[in-house]
């Protein structure tokens, strides 16, 4: 287990913790890429899915988008856009946003559609307008699935932001790519550990956020679990 000692040494070397190429700086870059990409993805996906879900249109597209999206290889997209657009962050964001959109669309759409029809009709009967039904009834009830979608996207984006380093940008992927290029096992595995920990942290943070955002009256745990199995959400 010599490499574990090397790994420990890599983590305890102060040089790896300082400057623009240190762990904190790379971590911050990684978080920036991921936040911006997930935010843009949600900005595009949420309104679209809410409208589709509310009107009940485009269901086939919304439901199948996630599975098709999974098939698109992010490494290929990053490199292709890089060749087309050159050395700027566009390739990174193009690939990450493309990755973020499908799970949010699918989960949100299904969440809104699976709101009990009686609940929706009573809201309408009470005189709520379409927008009010969406805002005050459908969104709160669908919140567990909406959050599950954003969480799935965020975790995937964090994992894939590693690829930014492949076309020369920063983030934690730097350690992986540089370590791999020089076959520096300690740096490579150190970076891998950092990305894995960050992904798990995002997963846990979103779990907490979800608990905070979901209304106390809405706890359809079993149903959500079944729907998630069908959708294949990555979150357990």
């Amino acid at each position, binding site marked *: 287990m010599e490499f574990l000692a090397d790994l420990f040494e890599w983590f305890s070397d102060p040089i790896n913790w300082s400057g623009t190429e240190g762990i904190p700086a790379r971590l911050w870059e990684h978080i920036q890429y991921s936040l911006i990409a997930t935010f843009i993805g949600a900005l595009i996906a949420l309104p679209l899915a809410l409208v589709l879900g509310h009107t009940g249109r485009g269901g086939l597209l919304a439901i199948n988008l996630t599975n098709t999206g999974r098939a698109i290889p992010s490494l290929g997209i990053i490199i292709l856009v890089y060749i087309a657009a050159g050395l700027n962050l566009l390739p990174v964001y193009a690939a990450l946003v493309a990755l973020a959109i499908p799970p949010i669309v699918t989960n949100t759409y299904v969440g809104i559609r699976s709101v009990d029809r009686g609940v929706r009709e009573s809201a309408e009967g009470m005189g709520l307008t379409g927008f009010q039904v969406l805002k005050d009834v459908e969104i709160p009830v669908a919140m567990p699935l909406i959050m599950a979608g954003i969480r799935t996207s965020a975790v995937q984006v964090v994992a894939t932001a590693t690829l930014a380093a492949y076309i020369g940008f920063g983030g934690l992927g730097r350690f992986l790519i540089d370590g791999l290029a020089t076959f520096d096992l300690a740096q490579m595995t150190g970076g891998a550990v950092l990305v894995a920990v960050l992904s798990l942290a995002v997963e846990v943070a979103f779990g907490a956020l979800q608990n905070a955002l979901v209304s106390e009256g809405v706890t359809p745990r079993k149903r959500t679990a079944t729907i998630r199995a069908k959708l294949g959400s990555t979150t*357990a």
Partner: protein
Amino acid sequence: MDWAWVGSHLDDIQHLLLQHITFTVSALFFGFIIAFPLALVAARYPRLYQPILGITGVLFTIPSIALFLLLLPFTGLSETTCILGLTIYTLLVLVRNTVEGLRGVPDDVKEAAEAMGYRPLALLMKVELPIALPVVIAGLRIAAVTTIGLVTITALITFGGLGAFFIDGFRRDFATPIIVGIVLSVALAVAADLSLVGVQRVLTPWARTRR
């Protein structure tokens, strides 16, 4: 798009496509062999379900590049590393969907089968699994499509199936191989997805007639 390149590289395309398929099929095969017993245990002892989901969930959350690199010290730059990593990623979906499928079997159906004299193994094989099959296959579809996407990442550790074209295109600043790689891996995913839908239709004839 340089069609001449495509014409002169048909051998490479065939070779990498085959590698891509081999990796995917191996990962699904081993994944299923591991996940299936785990799912049966989790379905029978619900207390173990959350821990099993938790562990496979954590494994799934580890970014693929990180996982492949973390395996390198143990299994080296080898096909074993690729297939092992890919297999690990299939576990969460396969376990969860198998368990949810088995859980979805109505209790009165199980009781009726028991009353008709089905022993536990026969009940599982002849009643529970057939009813759970659509959800199990839904899991296989997700796992297959995800794995086909992930295979391209193994290009970073010198393999990659069609992902090898991405690296090639990047090194030569040449878009054609990258487009070929993307298009073929998406096509492969769609083909795998559709064939599994076909398998499901063949295996669940009652679902067809009912509609």
